[in-house]
């Protein structure tokens, strides 16, 4: 096992709520693989889709704050689990490293001297595993192989586009293949594995997202998949929670389990990772508390 494999961890909102199993399974897997995953002591929202507007730098500041904190805490590498967080952080970081960048504008606006450098390297957990862990290491930890299970890896869009931040070939992604193979699963390639799941349209146009979910799931099924492995909480939600809605128009659709790839890893490695699945705080007070800005947020200080 490699010594001293340490990486900063940016969880993001969903990993602490809807996608707890993703986090707990990933952390359990990382532990046995000898990766020290150190959660940033303070972090805020990654900025989500709003930050992806190419022109306006303002929504990027949320990401910038996270990157600054990572640098302050001495992390040269940080990792995310959520694909959206990966995408926003990486794209923002690229603003600081690429030629035509917004580095000066952002640093000036935040009155930072010398300012954020762009030196923090952002990994998605999948990318981290590919670069630091050999598939044989994964294989050696497998106690109950997923023999006979046909798993279709589904990548969605956020890990692959734009291609500047892609963790794999955007048209032919196969980063999950060696991991799933190491777990003993049969890997199913299907043409919809890099198609959009519908993303945030799920909030306003659920029918449209259900149509996409149907095509993705039925394509994987026709290729013989038993389950779909995802790496993004939003994909997970759209593909699993909307199956009921899909069945209203396509009653014949067989149920398709949607799992995080880390869950498969943990299961094959015999790790106990289960949390109370999908805890969404219904408590109004708790929700309000989450919405209230913290008076101690250093980001606010910087903005003054």
């Amino acid at each position, binding site marked *: 096992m490699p010594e001293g494999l340490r990486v900063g961890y940016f969880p993001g909102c969903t990993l602490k709520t809807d996608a707890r199993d993703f986090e707990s399974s990933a952390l359990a897997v990382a532990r046995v693989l000898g990766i020290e995953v150190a959660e940033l002591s303070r972090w805020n929202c990654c900025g989500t889709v709003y930050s992806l507007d190419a022109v306006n730098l303002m929504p990027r500041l949320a990401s910038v704050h996270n990157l600054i904190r990572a640098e302050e805490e001495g992390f040269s590498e940080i990792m995310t689990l959520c694909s959206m967080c990966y995408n926003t952080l990486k794209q923002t970081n690229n603003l600081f490293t690429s030629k035509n960048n917004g580095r000066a504008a952002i640093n000036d606006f935040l009155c930072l001297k010398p300012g954020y450098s762009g030196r923090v390297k952002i990994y998605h957990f999948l990318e981290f595993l590919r670069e630091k862990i050999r598939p044989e290491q994964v294989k050696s930890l497998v106690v109950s192989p997923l023999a006979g299970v046909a798993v279709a890896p589904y990548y969605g869009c956020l890990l692959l586009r734009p291609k500047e931040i892609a963790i794999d*070939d*955007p*048209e*032919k992604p196969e980063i999950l293949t060696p991991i799933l193979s190491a777990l003993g699963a049969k890997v199913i390639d299907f*043409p919809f594995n890099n198609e959009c799941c519908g993303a945030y349209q799920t909030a306003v146009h659920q029918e449209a997202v259900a149509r996409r979910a149907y095509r993705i799931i039925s394509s994987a099924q*026709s290729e013989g998949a038993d389950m779909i492995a995802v790496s993004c909480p939003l994909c997970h939600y759209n593909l699993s929670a909307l199956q009921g809605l899909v069945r209203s128009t396509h009653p014949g659709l067989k149920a398709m389990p949607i799992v995080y790839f880390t869950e498969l890893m943990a299961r094959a490695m015999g790790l106990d990772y289960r949390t109370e699945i999908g805890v969404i705080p219904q408590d109004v007070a708790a929700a309000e508390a989450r919405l209230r800005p913290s008076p101690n947020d250093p980001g606010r200080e910087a903005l003054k």
Partner: protein
Amino acid sequence: MTRLGVFICHCGKNIARTVNIEALREKAATLPHVVLAKDYLYLCSKPGQTMIADDIREHRLDKVLIAACSPRLHGKTFAQTAQRAGLNPYLLDMANIREHCSWVHIDGAEGTEKAFSIIKGGLGRLLYAEPLEPFQSPVTKRVLVIGGGVAGIQATLDIANSGYEVYLVEKSPSLGGHMAQLGETFPTLDCSSCILTPKMVEVSQNEHVHLLSYSEVTRIEGNIGQFQVTVRLRPRYVDETLCTGCGDCVPTCPVVVSNEFDQGLGARKAVYLPFPQAVPAVYTIDWDACLNTDKLIICENCYKDCEAKAINFLMEPQEKMVEVGAVVLATGYELMPVARIGEYGGDEYEDVIDGLQFERMLSASGPTGGVVRRPSDGRIPQNVVFVQCAGSRDPEHGIPYCSKVCCMYTAKHALLYKHAVPDGQVYVFYIDIRAAGKGHEEFVQKVMSEERILYLRGKVSKIFKSGAKLVVWGADTLSGRQVEIEADLVVLAMAVIPSSGSQKLARTLHIASDLSGFFSEAHPKLRPLESNTDGIFLAGAAQFAKDITDTVSQATGAAGKALSLLANDFIKLEPTISEVEEGICRGCGLCVSICPFGAVKMLPSTRTGAMVAGINPILCKGCGLCTAGCLSGAVTLKGSSFKQIFAQLEEMV
């Protein structure tokens, strides 16, 4: 006492717009040694040149400075003027106050000031100029043509029919290139091989042509008028002089592989003729496919069956030295591999093919005998999708340019398919239709309107397999909708790219190529047939994607260029080359390694016998690299000596 003359050109308004010519002339007249300063509307015009010549004689001018455009444009013009007036042309120099000054300035005062400084610099340089005499070099009256496609064939025939010897070097076993693979040609639907084969035969029968097939140019030395070329003849393991082309060697050959000529759709044996009309009609053993190796020769079936005893397993590669006066480059193109477009399947789907593969299916002598079939199951496709601009006009895939021929050949493909399968449905995805050629637009319009082919304006985003069919996703930008088509066969009009190996050849020949790898022409408008190395001419798709008509036109043009060079017994070479001062050279040999043309060699000094650098005046191109690199300052570039350059700098700053 030197007598200098300065002539300032208005170039119409090109210079006069931002440079005050009057003021400039008055200032120039006051400079030391200047005995005459004049201006004129167009110095390059006949009256302008006559004026300069008359003034040189009348005012007994020793040296003349022409303040006008770039010497690249009119350097030769004024050199001839000087010669006519009896002045050594190297005592006339040009100060570029157009490209370097008036064109880049808006403000008149600044422009005039800069023009004056350029003139002062030019005069400083001119003061130390010395008369030089061009020297002559004989012209070898033979031409090398590289590439045996239609461009190379046409150039070869044009030159050979004028009575000059031609060496035609072709990489593959046969002449013909891509044109031999095509079924019918647009827009007239001529049978491609029917019109090409007679020309191939003519090449093989012309007594002036030395056909070197299955060969490659590995080395070229020398310069215009006398190139020494090394050609590597790959062993075909069949003696060309003995082989009768009977084909008796084929039936018992135990190895079947895919035929490159059929673009991987058809078969051939390890001993093969790529196609029935191949020239030379000589069989070749594909050593990569043959069961025998260099060390182990066991299978002798072909050897036993050859009555002419032409098979020779011990054949070795040969090198042939050829001396020529000019070179025509006609190395052609190939299609970008489908594998480079992941969203179109990246060459994973058998029924996604490229345009050349479709051509082979349309060809009567092709692997399907002219019937369009699906490679996966051999069935005749009912729904065919053609995708234009597959790779072309797509910087994301590294090809920003339009491949020029795809709109036309796709229309032709659609037409020929519909003629064969009248109830089949054809979809064509396009960005624009570019049919700029004689009869081209009419052809496309006819196909669109008469053949009931659905032209969809938009790109294809993804192709994937669904059962036995292919699903094509695309956009129809005219209706604003996304479309999804179930297709039996998809034909990609892949981008035209330079043939593989052309970059290596460019390095061998010391010629430039553009960002896409096509050979660069000397001037995009006025010298489209010449490379930037004198004596090397360009023909066909090696210069840029073009159709057969344009290729043949360019090939004939390149042949004409080569012939006009061969019409001279001698060519004049510029004397502006490097010269070594033997007494200063310390023999370090740095210049030998710097020279990109191999013009510098270490030779014993004529006086002391010590090893010093010596420059071959024929090979030297006058680039000045050795001059700049020499640690002891022993090398001088004639016409741009250190004295001249420093004088120019001192005057300017």
